[in-house]
């Protein structure tokens, strides 16, 4: 049996999903974090259930790529049961999607998630009555605490077995008449079978002027097109508004009526968290808090990282001389073993100490619901570089990893905005590059120098944004973004999320690191590294870097943190300061931050923005890196 989780953005679908799958889907408190679907299989009453977590969608008339993906999946027609996850504290608005899902005539269950939050807001819901109105079971739940999940799935299973379909709720009589007449025409021409959806659903989509369905049949059936325009005009004339407004207003009123009939309001409990916005979104204090939060965050990463890096490095320092005593340093086996040790050491001592506090802090900010607030605060600034506030979400995720950041550009409406933000996101120092900034610049030069790199990076990104938006002049559609209520982060979820993201490093990057170290050892053993280094010598001499840096830059394209760890290995000591001057360290770091995105990023760019634009991004960032690093060499 296949069950799909469908609901509005930020209603907790991924949290419900994780309740049965383990922490597999990233959850955060901002609308639109799930941009592609995730699948899992689990056992229920001896049956294998396939569960799919779909991106959130406000309605079945979809706008952005993530929403379209959800709708496409649902219309494919192989889902046995739909679980409509609703944020109970936003019931009236959520019911508009529920009404549309019922139009699809699929077996359905409603999950009233965050029922505790609704109670806190003073919204009491008569569950039985709600279930009667729609003719489908309604299960209250608190997914974050795992409450009600068992009942939800056993109910879903029963509904799927009986193939129980809910009621279709009628609109006002005159509107319903138009819908019925159009439905008859659609049925006659068998258009509904072509799309594999009920004729009433299709009639509504046509009256709503849904571009997907309109485009699809304009080519095929000119005859019906006239009918549709005719019926759209009837609604327009009788209501004095466009037909899509008539339909959405009808649904809105129906939802409001249902909401009023099932809800009893009491006084909301106001907590400290409700006053947070008086500071965090304040026109003056908001910006001060933003700066302060990131400054503290920066210091936390550096403080924790340094505390752990120093003793661990000391430990590994002592290991190599020990090895030299037991194995002859000029043999091949020494090269291989020391390569493996350096790869291991790089991961444990240099990368993990900075990665963990960073990902942990990011998870807290995400779950609290701070990201959409940043979008609000920075919207005006982003307009100056031709984007709007929502673009800040992929940018912030970019500080974690560029791949999900580029995926997250799907929440932007226009193709141009997605392209510009994708290019800019590749330049944001991801966690891998952050470890380079911290472990090289902050560690060997000063934390202030590291902070300066971050500030310089933001300036360069802003200027690049300005250039790109000049090249592609088009007015950005403007921000429409829901600002969700704050949630107190659950420590369990924060740790699970941190672990899920760390796994990427531990199981993908680290083995690569060890293999890379070993390959470099072999290259050095057979003296082939000099060949590559000589090939890169025009670049390294332009930047005033040691010749051995050449090889490490190739590894950096595989994974950004490799370039630093390989550097340490190539220069033959983990005390970088002994071999490289502060200017060289700075030049190297600047170059590595900006040049060619890593291979995983290139792959996702290729998919999201196409081959030409990916090649453009590679060229653009490489030229930028060379210019900036050369300037650094002579200025710093």
């Amino acid at each position, binding site marked *: 049996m296949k069950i799909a989780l469908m609901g509005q953005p930020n209603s907790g679908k991924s949290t419900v999903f994780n309740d049965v799958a383990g922490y597999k889907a990233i959850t955060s408190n901002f609308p639109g974090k799930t941009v592609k679907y995730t699948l899992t299989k689990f056992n229920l009453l001896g049956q294998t259930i396939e569960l799919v977590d779909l991106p959130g969608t406000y309605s079945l008339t979809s706008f952005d790529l993530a929403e379209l993906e959800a709708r496409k999946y649902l219309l494919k027609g192989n889902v046995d049961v739909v679980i409509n996850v609703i944020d109970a504290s936003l019931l009236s608005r959520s019911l508009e999607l529920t009404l549309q899902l019922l139009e699809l005539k699929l077996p359905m269950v409603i999950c009233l998630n965050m029922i505790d939050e609704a109670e806190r807001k003073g919204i009491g819901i008569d569950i039985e009555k709600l279930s009667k109105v729609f003719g489908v079971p309604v299960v209250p739940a608190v997914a974050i605490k795992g409450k009600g999940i068992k009942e939800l799935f056993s109910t879903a299973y029963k509904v799927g077995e009986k193939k129980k379909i809910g009621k279709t709720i009628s609109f006002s009589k005159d509107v319903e008449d138009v819908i019925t007449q159009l439905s008859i025409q659609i049925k006659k021409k068998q258009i509904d079978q072509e799309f594999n959806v009920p004729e009433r659903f299709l009639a509504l989509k046509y009256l709503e002027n849904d571009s997907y369905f309109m485009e699809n049949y304009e080519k095929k059936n000119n005859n019906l097109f006239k009918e549709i325009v005719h019926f759209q005009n009837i609604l327009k004339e009788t209501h004095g508004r466009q037909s899509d407004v008539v339909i959405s207003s009808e649904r809105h009123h129906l939802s409001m009526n249902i909401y009023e009939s099932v809800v009893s309001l009491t006084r909301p409990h106001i907590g400290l968290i409700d006053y947070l916005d008086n500071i965090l979104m304040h026109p003056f204090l908001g910006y001060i808090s933003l700066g302060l939060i990131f400054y503290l965050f920066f210091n936390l990463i550096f403080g924790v990282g340094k505390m752990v890096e120093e003793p661990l490095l000391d430990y590994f320092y002592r290991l190599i001389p020990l090895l030299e005593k037991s194995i002859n340093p000029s043999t091949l086996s020494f090269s291989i073993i020391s390569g493996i040790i350096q790869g291991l050491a790089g991961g444990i001592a240099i990368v993990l100490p900075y990665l963990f506090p960073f990902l942990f802090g990011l998870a807290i900010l995400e779950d609290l619901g701070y990201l959409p607030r940043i979008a609000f605060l920075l*919207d005006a600034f982003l307009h100056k570089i031709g984007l709007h506030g929502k673009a800040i979400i992929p940018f912030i995720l970019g500080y974690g990893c560029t791949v999900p950041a580029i995926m997250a550009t799907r929440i932007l409406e226009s193709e141009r905005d997605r392209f510009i933000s994708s290019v800019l996101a590749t330049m944001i120092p991801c966690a891998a590059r952050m470890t380079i900034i911290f472990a090289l610049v902050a560690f060997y030069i000063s934390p202030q120098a590291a902070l300066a790199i971050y500030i310089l990076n933001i300036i360069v990104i802003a200027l690049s944004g300005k250039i790109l938006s000049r090249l592609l002049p088009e007015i950005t559609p403007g921000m429409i973004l829901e600002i969700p209520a704050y949630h107190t982060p659950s420590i369990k979820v924060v740790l699970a999320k941190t672990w899920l993201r760390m796994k990427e490093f531990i199981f993908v990057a680290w083995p690569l690191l060890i293999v890379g170290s070993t390959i470099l050892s072999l290259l050095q053993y057979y003296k082939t590294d000099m060949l590559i280094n000589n090939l890169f010598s025009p670049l390294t001499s332009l930047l005033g870097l040691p010749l051995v840096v050449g090889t490490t830059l190739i590894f950096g394209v595989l994974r950004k943190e490799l370039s630093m760890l390989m550097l340490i290995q190539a220069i033959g000591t983990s005390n970088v300061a002994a071999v490289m001057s502060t200017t060289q360290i700075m030049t190297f770091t600047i170059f590595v931050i900006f040049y060619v995105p890593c291979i995983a990023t290139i792959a996702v760019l290729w998919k999201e923005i196409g081959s030409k634009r990916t090649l453009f991004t590679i060229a653009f960032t490489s030229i930028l890196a060379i210019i900036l690093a050369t300037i650094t060499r002579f200025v710093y």
Partner: protein
Amino acid sequence: MTITLDSIGENQKVKVVSISGGWGIRQRLGCLGIHPGDIITVKRSAIMRGPILISVHGNQVALGRGVARKIIVEVE
């Protein structure tokens, strides 16, 4: 008296009269509970002609200036 939403001060309550944008913007605002006839409270207005924060049906939504300009409202 009708006026556009971007010129409403903080903490004022207004009623939506119409939305002057195209299909996309009407639909998107509709999804967030903003239709003609709905009551909106302006909660905050960001500096430098930044976005406004409104409250509608117990939910908060940030709207860019350009978007707010397309919403025609009536002061109650």
